Every structure is written in structure tokens, then in C-alpha cells.
């Protein structure tokens, strides 16, 4: 179990060595907020499986997005990517693992959590932000905004088509060439784009250690430390790859052979241990276009939610 409070991360502190952190899947976290009528920057709860049982001591309007862990409110299953009213003394549980890696719980009005450097994200390294700078534990109490709502949401808009465009096709991960891409010879470049790489159990919010055919350089290099980003794929001296994620270090000294495009980071955040990734190289303009269309998808979901709540 690893459950933390996250938002969209802290921007502007990398020069101090403080990584942005935040939700691994920005799309799912933002949509979870939109579904309950929140601004996308409200804190949410990021859950891995097994996920916690949560007793609501107040009525609340909630949504669950991202990974599907078969959510139930008492004995009733509830659909993901939809708003729900949960009553005082009802219990939210996650019964079994279905798909994805990280699930997000948003609550109308947000939740009380610690702000550090303009973000509610939990930084476990320096123990700051979120819930006392640490993962949630048994018996923790989180204060929420009580909502007086009782709705069935029967005519709530369906966003499954939009959601599919973000997560499909599942394991094809588009990248652009990284600053050290040209250290690879042609055979090594082909290994990277033609072979599959699996996510090993040595993977967490800092990054995924991948397992695949060795990618070896003609000559070993010593690089001096330089900045990295979420999605940076580093080549280790032993020929294996590390893919950096939300809690990555701000700088590193391994060759940065490629970088996953921003539009495919949500997909990657939902990839589970042992998934096989197929990297596909693309150009910077395609990457920007993909990011712009992800932004438009989010805007259309946001508007759909807003129109629904405004029409009340």
C-alpha cells in the first residue's frame, strides 16, 4: 500500500534540487477534480493497489479515476470516471485489482492538506506537503468540505471516448531523441526502437527500472551532471535503462538517450510492473501537437463537467 496526497506538482524549485513531484498521472488527477466540479489543482489522493478503506464521516461528492481497483461504496459497486454522492458513515473500498497502476480520489471542495512551496504534493524525501509529508496510514483523518448533495448523476456526460484517446494504444510509448541519443550507434538505436522493455519490480514514483536487451556504447562516457525531466530515459553503464517519473532527481549523470513525450506520461503512469513497453521515436513537432491535443481533450472534459453543474 502506498497512498499519498498529490496535486499537479511544485513548479519553480528544480534549481534548488527540489523535483516537481505531484500526481504521476496528471490527466487522471485533473479529470478526477473536474468530475466533482473542482479546479484541476485541488489535492487528490493517489492510490496504488492494495488501496485503503475510507470511512466518510460526512456526506461528500467524490470521483475515482485512473486505475480501476473495483471501487465499492458499502455493497454497491461504483463506476470509475463518474461523480458519486457518498453518505455519512458509508465506506469506500477497493475490492480487486482490475487494471492500471494508480487510482485518484477527488472530493468536491478538496481536502485539508499541507502546502509546501505552493503545492500540496507529498515530498517523502524531505517530509513536506500533503498529509504531514508522509504516505497515509491506518487511522489517519483527513478533513474535507462536507457537501449536501444527493444525486444519481444519471445524465452525466460520458467521457470514455476522450479517455481512450489518452490511454490507447496501451504499451506504445512515443519518445523524442534525448541530448545524448547520438552516442548510440545504429545497432543500439535499433535495439531501443525495435525491442520490448519491461518494467521491473524495482520501480516506484521516482522512476522505472526497465529490463531488456543491453544497449551498449562503443566507448564508455563520463558525463558531468546535468538536468533531467519526467520521462527522461537514462542509459546505465550496464546497458539497462531507467525511465524517470514524478519524484525524479533534478539532475543526473547518465546519458539521456530519449525522452517520453508529455502526452504519453499518463499512459506510462498507468503501466504496471512487468508491462512490456515499445518505444517509438517521433519528432518534437509531433510531440507538441500530441500535448496540445491532450490539452484540448482535458478542456473538453472540463467544459462537459462545467456545463453539467452550471445547468443545475
Amino acid at each position, binding site marked *: 500500500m502506498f497512498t499519498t496526497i498529490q496535486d499537479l506538482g511544485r*513548479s519553480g524549485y528544480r534549481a534548488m534540487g527540489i523535483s516537481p513531484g505531484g500526481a504521476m498521472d496528471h490527466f487522471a488527477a485533473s479529470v478526477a477534480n473536474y468530475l466533482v466540479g473542482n479546479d484541476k489543482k485541488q489535492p487528490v489522493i493517489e492510490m496504488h493497489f492494495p488501496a485503503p478503506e475510507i470511512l466518510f464521516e460526512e456526506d461528500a461528492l467524490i470521483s475515482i479515476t485512473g486505475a480501476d481497483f473495483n471501487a465499492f461504496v458499502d455493497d454497491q459497486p461504483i463506476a470509475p470516471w463518474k461523480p458519486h454522492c457518498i453518505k455519512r458513515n458509508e465506506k469506500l473500498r477497493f475490492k480487486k485489482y482490475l487494471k492500471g497502476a494508480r487510482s485518484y480520489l477527488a472530493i468536491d471542495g478538496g481536502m485539508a492538506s499541507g502546502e509546501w512551496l505552493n503545492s500540496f504534493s507529498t515530498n517523502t524525501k524531505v517530509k513536506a506537503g500533503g498529509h504531514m509529508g508522509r504516505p497515509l496510514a491506518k487511522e489517519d483523518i483527513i478533513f474535507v468540505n462536507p457537501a449536501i448533495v444527493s444525486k444519481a448523476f444519471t445524465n452525466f456526460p460520458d467521457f470514455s471516448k476522450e479517455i481512450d484517446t489518452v490511454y490507447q494504444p496501451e504499451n506504445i510509448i512515443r519518445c523524442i531523441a534525448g*541530448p545524448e541519443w547520438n552516442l548510440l550507434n545504429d545497432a543500439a538505436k535499433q535495439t531501443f526502437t525495435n525491442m520490448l522493455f519491461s518494467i521491473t519490480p524495482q520501480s516506484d514514483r521516482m522512476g522505472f527500472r526497465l529490463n531488456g536487451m543491453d544497449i551498449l556504447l562503443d566507448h564508455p562516457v563520463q558525463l558531468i551532471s546535468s*538536468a533531467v*525531466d519526467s520521462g527522461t530515459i537514462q542509459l546505465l553503464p550496464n546497458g539497462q535503462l531507467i525511465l524517470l517519473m514524478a519524484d525524479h532527481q533534478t539532475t543526473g549523470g547518465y546519458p539521456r538517450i530519449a525522452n517520453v513525450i508529455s502526452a504519453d506520461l499518463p499512459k506510462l503512469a498507468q503501466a504496471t510492473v512487468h508491462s512490456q513497453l515499445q518505444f517509438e521515436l517521433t519528432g518534437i513537432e509531433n510531440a507538441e501537437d500530441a500535448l496540445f491535443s491532450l490539452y484540448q481533450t482535458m478542456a473538453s472534459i472540463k467544459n462537459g463537467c462545467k456545463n453539467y453543474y452550471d445547468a443545475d
Partner: protein
Amino acid sequence: MPAANSTITDFEITALSDRSVLVSFGNIIAEAINRKVLYLHKKLLQSAFNGFLESVPAYASLAIFYDVVQIKKHTQSPAFIFVKSYLQQLLLQINTDSEPAAEIIKIPVCYDAVFGMDIEHLAESHQLKISEVISLHSSVIYRVYMIGFMPGFAYMGTVNEKLIAPRKHQPRLNIPAGSVGIAGSQTGIYPVASPGGWQIIGRTPLQLFNVNSSTPCLLSAGDQVQFASIDKNEFEQLHGY
């Protein structure tokens, strides 16, 4: 005129990710190059473009992060091209001649073997007395080249060549906050407890990283640092300040 001679022309701009570019000035640790990095960093903070998010200085490179969607809303060209040409223009305008020297920050360090777990081994393997290690390490004014690896970790250099020491083969699982170490020709201080592979020669009682402060890091890139040897009693008195 000097300004014209020192205009920055030897650089390369590449994409780091689809939302950040890297301006590289080479792959070496040299003060003259690091000054260019920090000058560009400062200049960019003073005259940021619309969509600029943050920049990250390293030894010989500056990464610039930007909001692709915001830039694409006001320009026809790809955001990468827009940022790249903005930086090219900026690099034409700047020179590093007039940069004033930073104030020297004194950092007390207790080099006792209780704190400096590797100082005895380092002295022995370098055929030095422990007192020589201490005086070689504390007699140099170091430059903070960059902050990275973890919150507030300052990469400083360069150490006297008699002290150059490799990283440990087996990194330690837990190095206490304040530990002062050497890796290659670099020296640094662990701001918070962490696993790490640097050879530890002492510990400072100062708090390098304060999570409750709005300016959480004591050091930033471009600072000058000198270590001052203190004993265990002084360490205890200063601890936590």
C-alpha cells in the same frame, strides 16, 4: 572592446524533453563555463519569455522548462523553435566580464572520525596525515557549481588534487544530514539523510536545508564556500543553527 570578445557563441541548444531545452557549453567542470551558465540563468529570470516556467543550472548546461500550450497559443511556430530562437538572441546580448565575486560563506565542519567515517581511510590511501587532509580541504575557497541530486545538495569544487578520491564501490544506505564528502574532484554536503557513495570526511552542524523556510536552501549555484575546522564541543554548541 572586451564585451564583444566575450559574447557567448560556443553553445548548443537541444531538446531535453518536449517541454524543456538544454543549452550546453561543453562537458567539463570549469569556472569560466559555469559562469556562462549562471549568467544565462540570471538573465532569463530577469527577462523571461511568455510561457517560461523555470531554469536549472548545472556544471556546463542550463535547462529551460516552458509551458508548451501557452506558447503555442501565441505563436505559429513550434514552441521549441520559439524558445530556441529566444535563447539565441539572449545569448548574443550577454557577457560574463562584469560578474562580481560572490561573498564567501563560511561553513564550520567537525572532521572528527566519529562524523568523518572515511577520513582515516582517505588519509591512509593518499599517504597523508589526517591533519593534512583537514588543512587541504579547509584552505580552499570552493565554488558552488550547481544544486542537484536532492534538495539543497551543493556540488562544489575543486578540491586540491592530493585529495581527489573515487566514490565508494558500495554506497552507504544512510548518510546523516550535514555529512561532508568528496567524490572525484568535487566536494559536497548531504543536506538531508540519504543513501550515498561519497567518501565522508566530516560533518557540519549547520542546517543546509530547512523545510520550514521560504528559502529552504543555505547554498545556491555561484556561491563561494570555505570550510572551517571545529572540534566536537563547538559542533555540539552550533548544532541546529
